[in-house]
Protein backbone atom coordinates (compact mmCIF):
# COMPACT_ATOMS: atom_id res chain seq x y z
CA UNK A 1 0.00 0.00 0.00
CA UNK A 2 2.74 2.38 0.94
CA UNK A 3 4.63 1.75 -2.27
CA UNK A 4 1.51 2.40 -4.33
CA UNK A 5 1.17 5.69 -2.53
CA UNK A 6 4.77 6.57 -3.32
CA UNK A 7 4.25 5.66 -6.97
CA UNK A 8 1.26 7.97 -7.09
CA UNK A 9 3.27 10.79 -5.61
CA UNK A 10 6.12 10.32 -8.07
CA UNK A 11 3.66 10.11 -10.97
CA UNK A 12 2.01 13.35 -9.90
CA UNK A 13 5.39 15.02 -9.56
CA UNK A 14 6.36 13.94 -13.08
CA UNK A 15 3.09 15.22 -14.53
CA UNK A 16 3.47 18.56 -12.79
CA UNK A 17 7.09 18.85 -13.93
CA UNK A 18 6.08 18.01 -17.50
CA UNK A 19 3.34 20.64 -17.41
CA UNK A 20 5.76 23.19 -15.95
CA UNK A 21 8.28 22.78 -18.78
CA UNK A 22 5.55 22.54 -21.41
CA UNK A 23 5.47 26.26 -22.33
CA UNK A 24 9.26 26.27 -22.72
CA UNK A 25 9.25 23.51 -25.32
CA UNK A 26 6.06 24.37 -27.17
CA UNK A 27 5.25 27.89 -28.28
CA UNK A 28 1.63 27.19 -29.11
CA UNK A 29 -0.35 30.10 -27.71
CA UNK A 30 -3.63 28.23 -28.01
CA UNK A 31 -2.41 25.40 -25.85
CA UNK A 32 -0.94 27.66 -23.22
CA UNK A 33 -4.21 29.55 -22.94
CA UNK A 34 -6.29 26.37 -22.98
CA UNK A 35 -4.17 24.76 -20.27
CA UNK A 36 -4.34 27.91 -18.14
CA UNK A 37 -8.11 27.75 -18.45
CA UNK A 38 -8.11 24.07 -17.49
CA UNK A 39 -6.00 24.75 -14.40
CA UNK A 40 -8.30 27.55 -13.27
CA UNK A 41 -11.38 25.41 -13.67
CA UNK A 42 -9.58 22.55 -11.93
CA UNK A 43 -9.21 24.77 -8.88
CA UNK A 44 -12.90 25.64 -9.03
CA UNK A 45 -13.94 22.01 -9.50
CA UNK A 46 -11.73 20.85 -6.63
CA UNK A 47 -13.35 23.39 -4.33
CA UNK A 48 -16.71 22.07 -5.45
CA UNK A 49 -15.56 18.54 -4.72
CA UNK A 50 -15.03 19.50 -1.07
CA UNK A 51 -18.76 20.16 -0.88
CA UNK A 52 -20.18 17.51 -3.17
CA UNK A 53 -17.63 14.74 -2.87
CA UNK A 54 -16.41 15.02 0.70
CA UNK A 55 -19.28 16.53 2.64
CA UNK A 56 -22.09 15.26 0.44
CA UNK A 57 -23.92 18.57 0.07
CA UNK A 58 -25.11 19.88 -3.27
CA UNK A 59 -24.68 23.60 -3.73
CA UNK A 60 -26.07 25.32 -6.80
CA UNK A 61 -24.60 28.66 -5.84
CA UNK A 62 -20.92 28.05 -6.25
CA UNK A 63 -20.68 30.59 -9.05
CA UNK A 64 -21.24 33.43 -6.61
CA UNK A 65 -17.89 32.83 -4.89
CA UNK A 66 -16.15 32.49 -8.23
CA UNK A 67 -17.77 35.75 -9.30
CA UNK A 68 -16.79 37.51 -6.08
CA UNK A 69 -13.16 36.69 -6.66
CA UNK A 70 -13.35 37.71 -10.30
CA UNK A 71 -15.00 41.04 -9.50
CA UNK A 72 -12.76 41.78 -6.51
CA UNK A 73 -9.66 41.38 -8.67
CA UNK A 74 -11.06 43.12 -11.72
CA UNK A 75 -12.37 46.12 -9.80
CA UNK A 76 -9.24 46.58 -7.72
CA UNK A 77 -6.90 46.26 -10.70
CA UNK A 78 -9.06 48.73 -12.59
CA UNK A 79 -9.42 51.33 -9.84
CA UNK A 80 -5.89 51.15 -8.43
CA UNK A 81 -2.55 50.52 -10.08
CA UNK A 82 -2.29 47.27 -12.04
CA UNK A 83 0.60 45.92 -10.00
CA UNK A 84 1.37 42.49 -8.61
CA UNK A 85 0.89 43.83 -5.08
CA UNK A 86 -2.64 44.99 -5.81
CA UNK A 87 -3.31 41.67 -7.56
CA UNK A 88 -2.30 39.70 -4.47
CA UNK A 89 -4.25 42.07 -2.25
CA UNK A 90 -7.32 41.70 -4.44
CA UNK A 91 -7.12 37.92 -4.19
CA UNK A 92 -7.04 38.24 -0.41
CA UNK A 93 -9.96 40.69 -0.45
CA UNK A 94 -11.98 38.37 -2.69
CA UNK A 95 -11.23 35.42 -0.44
CA UNK A 96 -12.27 37.37 2.66
CA UNK A 97 -15.56 38.45 1.08
CA UNK A 98 -16.24 34.93 -0.16
CA UNK A 99 -15.36 33.54 3.25
CA UNK A 100 -17.70 35.89 5.09
CA UNK A 101 -20.57 35.37 2.65
CA UNK A 102 -20.19 31.60 2.58
CA UNK A 103 -20.08 31.60 6.39
CA UNK A 104 -23.30 33.60 6.66
CA UNK A 105 -25.12 31.71 3.91
CA UNK A 106 -23.91 28.40 5.29
CA UNK A 107 -25.01 29.21 8.81
CA UNK A 108 -28.45 30.14 7.54
CA UNK A 109 -29.00 27.31 5.09
CA UNK A 110 -26.85 24.32 5.99
CA UNK A 111 -29.15 23.26 8.80
CA UNK A 112 -31.73 22.48 6.12
CA UNK A 113 -32.12 19.25 4.18
CA UNK A 114 -30.26 18.77 0.92
CA UNK A 115 -33.20 19.88 -1.23
CA UNK A 116 -33.63 23.18 0.52
CA UNK A 117 -29.94 23.84 0.60
CA UNK A 118 -29.59 23.31 -3.14
CA UNK A 119 -32.56 25.54 -3.82
CA UNK A 120 -31.48 28.29 -1.48
CA UNK A 121 -27.93 28.45 -2.72
CA UNK A 122 -29.37 28.73 -6.21
CA UNK A 123 -31.58 31.60 -5.12
CA UNK A 124 -28.82 33.44 -3.22
CA UNK A 125 -26.52 33.12 -6.17
CA UNK A 126 -29.29 34.44 -8.41
CA UNK A 127 -29.53 37.41 -6.06
CA UNK A 128 -25.84 38.18 -6.50
CA UNK A 129 -26.22 37.95 -10.25
CA UNK A 130 -29.05 40.49 -10.19
CA UNK A 131 -27.05 42.69 -7.82
CA UNK A 132 -24.11 42.69 -10.23
CA UNK A 133 -26.38 43.52 -13.16
CA UNK A 134 -28.05 46.41 -11.35
CA UNK A 135 -25.03 47.92 -9.63
CA UNK A 136 -23.73 49.32 -12.89
CA UNK A 137 -21.47 52.00 -11.38
CA UNK A 138 -19.32 49.26 -9.90
CA UNK A 139 -19.66 46.33 -12.30
CA UNK A 140 -20.84 47.87 -15.61
CA UNK A 141 -23.52 45.17 -15.63
CA UNK A 142 -23.72 42.68 -18.41
CA UNK A 143 -21.43 44.72 -20.70
CA UNK A 144 -18.59 44.21 -18.27
CA UNK A 145 -15.31 46.07 -18.49
CA UNK A 146 -11.73 45.40 -19.47
CA UNK A 147 -8.81 46.23 -17.24
CA UNK A 148 -5.03 46.14 -17.40
CA UNK A 149 -3.32 43.14 -15.90
CA UNK A 150 -0.01 43.63 -14.03
CA UNK A 151 2.87 43.93 -16.51
CA UNK A 152 4.44 40.91 -14.94
CA UNK A 153 1.65 38.74 -16.39
CA UNK A 154 1.72 40.28 -19.87
CA UNK A 155 3.70 37.23 -20.80
CA UNK A 156 1.24 34.35 -21.10
CA UNK A 157 3.91 31.94 -19.95
CA UNK A 158 4.44 33.63 -16.60
CA UNK A 159 0.75 33.53 -15.98
CA UNK A 160 0.58 29.88 -16.98
CA UNK A 161 3.25 29.05 -14.42
CA UNK A 162 1.55 31.12 -11.75
CA UNK A 163 -1.76 29.34 -12.28
CA UNK A 164 -0.06 25.96 -12.34
CA UNK A 165 1.65 26.85 -9.06
CA UNK A 166 -1.69 27.84 -7.56
CA UNK A 167 -3.22 24.59 -8.73
CA UNK A 168 -0.48 22.52 -7.08
CA UNK A 169 -0.69 24.51 -3.85
CA UNK A 170 -4.47 24.27 -3.73
CA UNK A 171 -4.29 20.55 -4.43
CA UNK A 172 -1.76 19.98 -1.64
CA UNK A 173 -3.75 22.15 0.76
CA UNK A 174 -7.05 20.41 0.00
CA UNK A 175 -5.42 16.98 0.14
CA UNK A 176 -4.08 17.86 3.57
CA UNK A 177 -7.48 19.25 4.50
CA UNK A 178 -9.47 16.13 3.57
CA UNK A 179 -6.91 13.83 5.16
CA UNK A 180 -6.98 15.77 8.41
CA UNK A 181 -9.24 14.66 11.29
CA UNK A 182 -11.56 17.46 10.21
CA UNK A 183 -11.79 16.05 6.70
CA UNK A 184 -12.57 12.63 8.13
CA UNK A 185 -15.50 14.11 10.03
CA UNK A 186 -16.72 15.63 6.77
CA UNK A 187 -16.62 12.21 5.14
CA UNK A 188 -18.52 10.81 8.11
CA UNK A 189 -21.17 13.51 7.59
CA UNK A 190 -21.44 12.45 3.97
CA UNK A 191 -21.79 8.78 4.87
CA UNK A 192 -24.28 9.19 7.69
CA UNK A 193 -25.05 12.52 9.22
CA UNK A 194 -27.33 11.17 11.94
CA UNK A 195 -24.71 8.78 13.19
CA UNK A 196 -22.01 11.44 13.14
CA UNK A 197 -24.26 13.63 15.21
CA UNK A 198 -24.91 10.87 17.69
CA UNK A 199 -21.15 10.40 18.05
CA UNK A 200 -21.09 13.92 19.46
CA UNK A 201 -20.04 16.02 16.48
CA UNK A 202 -21.78 19.31 15.80
CA UNK A 203 -22.21 18.48 12.13
CA UNK A 204 -23.43 21.99 11.29
CA UNK A 205 -20.05 23.45 12.30
CA UNK A 206 -18.20 21.04 10.09
CA UNK A 207 -20.47 21.70 7.16
CA UNK A 208 -20.02 25.44 7.57
CA UNK A 209 -16.24 24.97 7.64
CA UNK A 210 -16.44 22.94 4.43
CA UNK A 211 -18.55 25.57 2.74
CA UNK A 212 -16.18 28.37 3.78
CA UNK A 213 -13.13 26.48 2.51
CA UNK A 214 -14.89 25.72 -0.77
CA UNK A 215 -16.03 29.33 -1.14
CA UNK A 216 -12.59 30.78 -0.48
CA UNK A 217 -10.88 28.47 -2.98
CA UNK A 218 -13.57 29.20 -5.58
CA UNK A 219 -12.88 32.90 -5.11
CA UNK A 220 -9.18 32.30 -5.83
CA UNK A 221 -10.18 30.55 -9.05
CA UNK A 222 -12.36 33.53 -9.93
CA UNK A 223 -9.51 36.00 -9.39
CA UNK A 224 -7.21 33.98 -11.62
CA UNK A 225 -9.93 33.67 -14.24
CA UNK A 226 -10.56 37.42 -14.39
CA UNK A 227 -6.87 38.19 -14.93
CA UNK A 228 -6.53 35.48 -17.58
CA UNK A 229 -9.28 37.17 -19.61
CA UNK A 230 -8.47 40.78 -18.58
CA UNK A 231 -12.19 41.26 -18.79
CA UNK A 232 -15.07 40.59 -16.48
CA UNK A 233 -18.83 40.68 -16.87
CA UNK A 234 -21.78 39.15 -15.11
CA UNK A 235 -21.30 35.80 -16.86
CA UNK A 236 -18.90 34.86 -14.04
CA UNK A 237 -21.86 34.78 -11.68
CA UNK A 238 -24.24 32.77 -13.83
CA UNK A 239 -25.47 29.26 -13.25
CA UNK A 240 -23.24 28.12 -16.14
CA UNK A 241 -20.16 28.38 -13.94
CA UNK A 242 -21.77 26.25 -11.25
CA UNK A 243 -22.85 23.77 -13.90
CA UNK A 244 -19.31 23.59 -15.27
CA UNK A 245 -17.95 22.85 -11.81
CA UNK A 246 -20.66 20.26 -11.28
CA UNK A 247 -20.05 18.51 -14.60
CA UNK A 248 -16.30 18.45 -14.08
CA UNK A 249 -16.64 17.02 -10.60
CA UNK A 250 -19.20 14.37 -11.55
CA UNK A 251 -17.51 13.23 -14.75
CA UNK A 252 -14.03 13.28 -13.23
CA UNK A 253 -15.06 11.52 -10.08
CA UNK A 254 -16.54 12.85 -6.85
CA UNK A 255 -14.60 12.70 -3.63
CA UNK A 256 -11.20 12.17 -5.23
CA UNK A 257 -9.72 15.67 -5.76
CA UNK A 258 -7.76 14.34 -8.74
CA UNK A 259 -11.05 13.55 -10.46
CA UNK A 260 -12.20 17.17 -10.76
CA UNK A 261 -8.84 18.08 -12.33
CA UNK A 262 -9.24 15.36 -14.92
CA UNK A 263 -12.88 16.31 -15.36
CA UNK A 264 -11.89 19.92 -15.97
CA UNK A 265 -9.42 18.77 -18.61
CA UNK A 266 -11.95 16.51 -20.32
CA UNK A 267 -14.72 19.12 -20.34
CA UNK A 268 -12.58 22.04 -21.44
CA UNK A 269 -10.91 20.05 -24.22
CA UNK A 270 -14.20 18.61 -25.40
CA UNK A 271 -15.73 22.07 -25.30
CA UNK A 272 -12.83 23.39 -27.36
CA UNK A 273 -13.10 20.69 -30.01
CA UNK A 274 -16.87 20.41 -30.12
CA UNK A 275 -17.37 24.14 -30.60
CA UNK A 276 -14.74 23.88 -33.36
CA UNK A 277 -16.94 21.25 -35.00
CA UNK A 278 -19.83 23.71 -35.18
CA UNK A 279 -18.75 24.57 -38.72
CA UNK A 280 -19.41 20.98 -39.79
CA UNK A 281 -22.90 20.69 -38.39
CA UNK A 282 -24.95 23.23 -36.42
CA UNK A 283 -25.86 20.65 -33.76
CA UNK A 284 -22.34 21.09 -32.36
CA UNK A 285 -23.16 24.66 -31.41
CA UNK A 286 -25.32 23.08 -28.77
CA UNK A 287 -22.51 20.84 -27.55
CA UNK A 288 -23.70 21.25 -24.00
CA UNK A 289 -26.53 18.81 -24.82
CA UNK A 290 -23.97 16.06 -25.12
CA UNK A 291 -22.63 16.95 -21.71
CA UNK A 292 -26.12 17.02 -20.28
CA UNK A 293 -26.80 13.53 -21.59
CA UNK A 294 -23.40 12.16 -20.58
CA UNK A 295 -23.90 13.72 -17.18
CA UNK A 296 -27.34 12.16 -16.69
CA UNK A 297 -26.01 8.78 -17.74
CA UNK A 298 -23.03 9.26 -15.42
CA UNK A 299 -25.29 10.04 -12.46
CA UNK A 300 -27.35 6.89 -13.08
CA UNK A 301 -24.81 4.34 -14.25
CA UNK A 302 -21.41 5.74 -13.46
CA UNK A 303 -21.73 7.69 -10.23
CA UNK A 304 -18.08 7.35 -9.29
CA UNK A 305 -16.80 9.19 -12.35
CA UNK A 306 -13.58 8.41 -14.20
CA UNK A 307 -11.13 8.43 -11.30
CA UNK A 308 -13.58 6.88 -8.87
CA UNK A 309 -14.22 3.93 -11.17
CA UNK A 310 -10.53 3.33 -11.80
CA UNK A 311 -9.80 3.55 -8.10
CA UNK A 312 -12.69 1.27 -7.27
CA UNK A 313 -11.45 -1.42 -9.67
CA UNK A 314 -7.94 -1.03 -8.33
CA UNK A 315 -8.97 -1.16 -4.69
CA UNK A 316 -11.33 -4.06 -5.09
CA UNK A 317 -8.39 -6.18 -6.09
CA UNK A 318 -5.68 -4.78 -3.89
CA UNK A 319 -7.03 -3.33 -0.72
CA UNK A 320 -10.75 -3.63 -0.14
CA UNK A 321 -10.84 -2.18 3.39
CA UNK A 322 -8.90 1.00 2.88
CA UNK A 323 -11.66 3.30 4.04
CA UNK A 324 -11.92 1.46 7.34
CA UNK A 325 -8.46 2.67 8.36
CA UNK A 326 -9.33 6.23 9.16
CA UNK A 327 -7.19 8.34 11.47
CA UNK A 328 -8.45 8.67 15.02
CA UNK A 329 -10.81 11.54 15.56
CA UNK A 330 -9.59 13.84 18.25
CA UNK A 331 -9.16 17.47 19.06
CA UNK A 332 -12.09 18.83 17.14
CA UNK A 333 -14.80 16.94 18.95
CA UNK A 334 -16.88 18.96 21.32
Amino acid sequence: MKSAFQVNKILLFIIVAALAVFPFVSDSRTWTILLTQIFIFSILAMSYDILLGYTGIVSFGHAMFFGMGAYATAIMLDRFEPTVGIFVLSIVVGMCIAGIISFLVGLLTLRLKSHFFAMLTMAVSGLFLVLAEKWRTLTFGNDGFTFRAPDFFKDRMMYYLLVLGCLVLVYLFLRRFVDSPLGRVLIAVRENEQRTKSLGFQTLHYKVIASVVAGVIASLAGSLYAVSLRFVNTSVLTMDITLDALLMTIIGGVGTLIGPIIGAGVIELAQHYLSGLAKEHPIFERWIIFFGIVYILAVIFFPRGIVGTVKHLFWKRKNPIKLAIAPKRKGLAK
Partner: protein
Amino acid sequence: MELLINLLINGLATGMLIFLLAAGLTLIFGLMDVLNFAHGGLFAWGAFSGVWFYGLTNSFTLAILGAILTGVVLGFITEKLIIKPVYGNHVQQILITLGFMIVLSEMLKVVFGPNQLAAKTPPLLAGSWEIGDVIIIKYRLFIIIIGFIVFGIFQFILKRTKIGLVVRAGVMNKEMVQALGINIKKVFLYVFMAGAALAALSGVLMAPYSGVIYAEMGMEFAILAFIVVVIGGMGSFPGSLLAAILVGLAGSFMAYYVPALSLAVNMMLMAIVLIFRPQGLFTAKG
Protein backbone atom coordinates in the same frame (compact mmCIF):
# COMPACT_ATOMS: atom_id res chain seq x y z
CA MET B 1 -55.84 54.55 -5.58
CA GLU B 2 -55.73 53.50 -9.22
CA LEU B 3 -52.01 52.96 -8.77
CA LEU B 4 -52.67 50.61 -5.89
CA ILE B 5 -55.24 48.65 -7.90
CA ASN B 6 -52.89 48.38 -10.85
CA LEU B 7 -50.05 47.16 -8.68
CA LEU B 8 -52.43 44.74 -7.01
CA ILE B 9 -53.54 43.27 -10.34
CA ASN B 10 -49.99 43.09 -11.57
CA GLY B 11 -48.86 41.33 -8.44
CA LEU B 12 -51.77 38.92 -8.49
CA ALA B 13 -51.18 38.01 -12.14
CA THR B 14 -47.49 37.33 -11.57
CA GLY B 15 -48.38 35.49 -8.40
CA MET B 16 -50.80 33.24 -10.27
CA LEU B 17 -48.19 32.31 -12.86
CA ILE B 18 -45.74 31.45 -10.11
CA PHE B 19 -48.45 29.53 -8.32
CA LEU B 20 -49.12 27.31 -11.34
CA LEU B 21 -45.43 26.47 -11.46
CA ALA B 22 -45.03 26.05 -7.73
CA ALA B 23 -48.18 23.95 -7.34
CA GLY B 24 -46.69 21.16 -9.44
CA LEU B 25 -43.39 21.37 -7.59
CA THR B 26 -44.99 21.23 -4.20
CA LEU B 27 -47.32 18.33 -5.05
CA ILE B 28 -44.49 16.32 -6.55
CA PHE B 29 -42.34 17.03 -3.54
CA GLY B 30 -45.05 16.28 -1.02
CA LEU B 31 -46.00 12.99 -2.60
CA MET B 32 -42.83 11.67 -4.14
CA ASP B 33 -40.18 13.39 -2.03
CA VAL B 34 -38.55 14.54 -5.26
CA LEU B 35 -37.55 18.11 -5.82
CA ASN B 36 -37.75 18.56 -9.55
CA PHE B 37 -35.09 21.00 -10.71
CA ALA B 38 -36.20 20.40 -14.29
CA HIS B 39 -39.54 22.07 -13.59
CA GLY B 40 -38.39 25.34 -15.11
CA GLY B 41 -37.53 23.44 -18.29
CA LEU B 42 -41.07 22.10 -18.52
CA PHE B 43 -42.30 25.67 -18.03
CA ALA B 44 -40.15 26.96 -20.89
CA TRP B 45 -41.27 24.08 -23.12
CA GLY B 46 -44.86 24.99 -22.36
CA ALA B 47 -44.20 28.58 -23.41
CA PHE B 48 -42.41 27.69 -26.65
CA SER B 49 -44.80 24.96 -27.73
CA GLY B 50 -47.75 27.23 -26.89
CA VAL B 51 -46.40 30.02 -29.05
CA TRP B 52 -45.70 27.52 -31.82
CA PHE B 53 -49.22 26.08 -31.66
CA TYR B 54 -50.64 29.59 -31.62
CA GLY B 55 -48.72 30.49 -34.77
CA LEU B 56 -49.94 27.27 -36.37
CA THR B 57 -53.62 27.36 -35.48
CA ASN B 58 -54.19 31.01 -34.55
CA SER B 59 -56.34 29.86 -31.69
CA PHE B 60 -55.27 30.59 -28.13
CA THR B 61 -57.42 27.78 -26.72
CA LEU B 62 -55.67 25.27 -28.95
CA ALA B 63 -52.33 26.80 -28.00
CA ILE B 64 -53.08 26.27 -24.32
CA LEU B 65 -54.25 22.71 -24.95
CA GLY B 66 -51.19 22.02 -27.08
CA ALA B 67 -48.88 23.33 -24.36
CA ILE B 68 -50.61 21.23 -21.74
CA LEU B 69 -50.27 18.18 -23.99
CA THR B 70 -46.56 18.92 -24.36
CA GLY B 71 -46.29 19.19 -20.60
CA VAL B 72 -48.05 15.87 -20.05
CA VAL B 73 -45.86 14.07 -22.60
CA LEU B 74 -42.67 15.59 -21.22
CA GLY B 75 -43.82 14.80 -17.70
CA PHE B 76 -44.34 11.17 -18.68
CA ILE B 77 -40.87 10.96 -20.25
CA THR B 78 -39.22 12.73 -17.31
CA GLU B 79 -40.78 10.47 -14.72
CA LYS B 80 -40.02 7.27 -16.61
CA LEU B 81 -36.47 8.08 -17.67
CA ILE B 82 -35.12 10.53 -15.12
CA ILE B 83 -36.93 10.32 -11.82
CA LYS B 84 -37.69 6.61 -11.59
CA PRO B 85 -34.09 5.32 -11.53
CA VAL B 86 -33.16 7.54 -8.59
CA TYR B 87 -36.13 7.37 -6.20
CA GLY B 88 -35.02 7.71 -2.62
CA ASN B 89 -31.56 9.16 -3.28
CA HIS B 90 -31.77 12.89 -2.73
CA VAL B 91 -28.35 13.92 -3.94
CA GLN B 92 -28.74 11.92 -7.14
CA GLN B 93 -32.21 13.37 -7.70
CA ILE B 94 -30.97 16.92 -7.37
CA LEU B 95 -28.07 16.28 -9.72
CA ILE B 96 -30.02 14.39 -12.34
CA THR B 97 -33.01 16.71 -12.52
CA LEU B 98 -30.65 19.65 -12.92
CA GLY B 99 -28.91 17.75 -15.72
CA PHE B 100 -32.24 17.18 -17.40
CA MET B 101 -32.97 20.88 -17.04
CA ILE B 102 -29.86 21.61 -19.11
CA VAL B 103 -30.91 19.11 -21.76
CA LEU B 104 -34.44 20.51 -21.88
CA SER B 105 -33.37 24.12 -22.29
CA GLU B 106 -30.68 23.27 -24.86
CA MET B 107 -33.17 21.15 -26.80
CA LEU B 108 -35.41 24.21 -26.92
CA LYS B 109 -32.63 26.05 -28.71
CA VAL B 110 -32.18 23.18 -31.14
CA VAL B 111 -35.88 22.92 -31.95
CA PHE B 112 -36.94 26.57 -31.91
CA GLY B 113 -33.64 28.30 -32.59
CA PRO B 114 -31.43 30.13 -30.11
CA ASN B 115 -33.10 33.54 -30.42
CA GLN B 116 -35.88 35.14 -28.43
CA LEU B 117 -39.35 34.66 -29.85
CA ALA B 118 -42.05 37.30 -29.74
CA ALA B 119 -45.37 36.20 -28.30
CA LYS B 120 -48.55 38.03 -29.28
CA THR B 121 -51.53 38.50 -27.03
CA PRO B 122 -54.62 36.99 -28.67
CA PRO B 123 -56.90 39.78 -29.95
CA LEU B 124 -59.79 38.80 -27.70
CA LEU B 125 -57.67 39.33 -24.61
CA ALA B 126 -55.60 42.27 -25.84
CA GLY B 127 -56.30 45.80 -24.72
CA SER B 128 -57.72 47.01 -21.47
CA TRP B 129 -60.81 48.27 -19.75
CA GLU B 130 -61.06 51.71 -18.26
CA ILE B 131 -63.22 51.98 -15.19
CA GLY B 132 -63.02 55.57 -14.05
CA ASP B 133 -59.31 56.26 -13.71
CA VAL B 134 -58.40 52.62 -13.29
CA ILE B 135 -57.00 50.86 -16.33
CA ILE B 136 -57.32 47.12 -16.12
CA ILE B 137 -55.35 45.12 -18.65
CA LYS B 138 -57.59 42.29 -19.80
CA TYR B 139 -54.91 39.68 -20.12
CA ARG B 140 -53.79 40.10 -16.51
CA LEU B 141 -57.32 39.62 -15.30
CA PHE B 142 -57.55 36.53 -17.51
CA ILE B 143 -54.46 35.05 -15.87
CA ILE B 144 -55.85 35.69 -12.40
CA ILE B 145 -59.15 34.03 -13.29
CA ILE B 146 -57.43 31.01 -14.83
CA GLY B 147 -55.25 30.72 -11.74
CA PHE B 148 -58.23 30.63 -9.40
CA ILE B 149 -60.07 28.16 -11.65
CA VAL B 150 -57.07 25.81 -11.67
CA PHE B 151 -56.77 26.14 -7.93
CA GLY B 152 -60.46 25.31 -7.58
CA ILE B 153 -60.24 22.28 -9.87
CA PHE B 154 -57.20 20.87 -8.11
CA GLN B 155 -58.61 21.56 -4.68
CA PHE B 156 -61.78 19.74 -5.73
CA ILE B 157 -59.81 16.77 -7.06
CA LEU B 158 -57.68 16.61 -3.96
CA LYS B 159 -60.52 16.90 -1.46
CA ARG B 160 -63.49 15.27 -3.15
CA THR B 161 -62.33 12.44 -5.40
CA LYS B 162 -60.83 9.03 -4.82
CA ILE B 163 -57.57 9.82 -6.60
CA GLY B 164 -57.26 12.96 -4.48
CA LEU B 165 -57.77 10.89 -1.37
CA VAL B 166 -55.01 8.53 -2.46
CA VAL B 167 -52.68 11.45 -3.19
CA ARG B 168 -53.32 13.07 0.18
CA ALA B 169 -52.86 9.76 1.96
CA GLY B 170 -49.66 9.24 -0.04
CA VAL B 171 -48.29 12.58 1.13
CA MET B 172 -48.81 11.43 4.71
CA ASN B 173 -47.59 7.86 4.47
CA LYS B 174 -46.56 6.22 1.22
CA GLU B 175 -45.85 2.78 2.64
CA MET B 176 -49.24 2.51 4.26
CA VAL B 177 -51.02 3.44 1.04
CA GLN B 178 -49.02 0.82 -0.80
CA ALA B 179 -49.77 -1.76 1.88
CA LEU B 180 -53.46 -1.11 1.33
CA GLY B 181 -53.11 -2.40 -2.21
CA ILE B 182 -52.80 0.81 -4.19
CA ASN B 183 -50.15 1.03 -6.86
CA ILE B 184 -48.44 4.17 -5.58
CA LYS B 185 -45.93 4.17 -8.43
CA LYS B 186 -48.79 4.76 -10.85
CA VAL B 187 -50.08 7.60 -8.69
CA PHE B 188 -46.59 9.08 -8.71
CA LEU B 189 -46.62 9.07 -12.49
CA TYR B 190 -50.03 10.75 -12.70
CA VAL B 191 -49.08 13.42 -10.19
CA PHE B 192 -45.85 14.08 -12.00
CA MET B 193 -47.68 14.44 -15.30
CA ALA B 194 -50.22 16.76 -13.71
CA GLY B 195 -47.43 18.86 -12.23
CA ALA B 196 -45.68 19.05 -15.59
CA ALA B 197 -48.97 20.06 -17.23
CA LEU B 198 -49.38 22.87 -14.71
CA ALA B 199 -45.85 24.06 -15.41
CA ALA B 200 -46.53 24.06 -19.15
CA LEU B 201 -49.80 25.91 -18.62
CA SER B 202 -47.94 28.51 -16.60
CA GLY B 203 -45.44 28.81 -19.43
CA VAL B 204 -47.99 29.33 -22.17
CA LEU B 205 -49.84 31.93 -20.10
CA MET B 206 -46.56 33.65 -19.33
CA ALA B 207 -45.67 34.04 -23.03
CA PRO B 208 -48.09 36.86 -23.98
CA TYR B 209 -47.72 38.39 -20.52
CA SER B 210 -44.02 39.05 -20.93
CA GLY B 211 -44.14 39.47 -24.73
CA VAL B 212 -40.92 37.60 -25.44
CA ILE B 213 -39.88 34.07 -24.60
CA TYR B 214 -36.36 32.67 -24.35
CA ALA B 215 -34.85 29.41 -23.20
CA GLU B 216 -33.38 30.79 -19.96
CA MET B 217 -36.75 31.99 -18.71
CA GLY B 218 -37.37 28.56 -17.22
CA MET B 219 -34.53 28.88 -14.76
CA GLU B 220 -35.40 32.44 -13.82
CA PHE B 221 -38.98 31.58 -13.07
CA ALA B 222 -38.14 28.30 -11.37
CA ILE B 223 -36.13 30.19 -8.76
CA LEU B 224 -39.23 32.20 -7.85
CA ALA B 225 -41.22 28.99 -7.69
CA PHE B 226 -38.64 27.46 -5.35
CA ILE B 227 -38.89 30.48 -3.08
CA VAL B 228 -42.66 30.10 -3.08
CA VAL B 229 -42.46 26.42 -2.24
CA VAL B 230 -40.16 27.17 0.69
CA ILE B 231 -42.36 29.96 2.00
CA GLY B 232 -45.61 28.08 1.50
CA GLY B 233 -44.38 24.83 2.95
CA MET B 234 -43.28 21.83 0.92
CA GLY B 235 -46.24 19.73 -0.12
CA SER B 236 -48.94 22.23 0.82
CA PHE B 237 -51.21 23.14 -2.09
CA PRO B 238 -53.07 26.11 -0.51
CA GLY B 239 -49.78 27.22 1.04
CA SER B 240 -48.22 27.56 -2.37
CA LEU B 241 -51.15 29.70 -3.59
CA LEU B 242 -50.85 32.11 -0.67
CA ALA B 243 -47.08 32.23 -0.85
CA ALA B 244 -47.17 32.80 -4.62
CA ILE B 245 -49.58 35.71 -4.21
CA LEU B 246 -47.38 37.09 -1.45
CA VAL B 247 -44.29 36.84 -3.63
CA GLY B 248 -46.11 38.31 -6.64
CA LEU B 249 -47.47 41.26 -4.67
CA ALA B 250 -44.20 41.91 -2.88
CA GLY B 251 -42.44 41.86 -6.25
CA SER B 252 -44.87 44.25 -7.97
CA PHE B 253 -45.01 46.75 -5.10
CA MET B 254 -41.28 46.70 -4.58
CA ALA B 255 -40.64 47.06 -8.31
CA TYR B 256 -42.61 50.31 -8.18
CA TYR B 257 -41.52 51.81 -4.88
CA VAL B 258 -37.99 50.42 -4.36
CA PRO B 259 -36.96 48.92 -7.72
CA ALA B 260 -33.50 47.98 -6.49
CA LEU B 261 -34.94 45.64 -3.91
CA SER B 262 -37.53 43.87 -6.07
CA LEU B 263 -35.69 40.54 -6.15
CA ALA B 264 -34.09 40.95 -2.76
CA VAL B 265 -37.48 41.23 -1.11
CA ASN B 266 -38.33 37.64 -2.04
CA MET B 267 -35.03 36.45 -0.68
CA MET B 268 -35.66 38.35 2.53
CA LEU B 269 -39.12 36.85 2.85
CA MET B 270 -37.61 33.42 2.39
CA ALA B 271 -34.79 34.06 4.85
CA ILE B 272 -37.26 35.22 7.49
CA VAL B 273 -39.48 32.19 6.95
CA LEU B 274 -36.50 29.86 7.10
CA ILE B 275 -35.21 31.32 10.33
CA PHE B 276 -38.50 31.37 12.20
CA ARG B 277 -40.51 28.63 10.52
CA PRO B 278 -38.22 26.33 8.54
CA GLN B 279 -41.09 23.99 7.66
CA GLY B 280 -42.85 26.84 5.79
CA LEU B 281 -45.98 28.78 6.65
CA PHE B 282 -48.23 25.80 6.02
CA THR B 283 -47.53 22.14 6.53
CA ALA B 284 -48.72 19.37 4.29
CA LYS B 285 -50.44 17.39 7.01
CA GLY B 286 -54.19 17.55 7.41
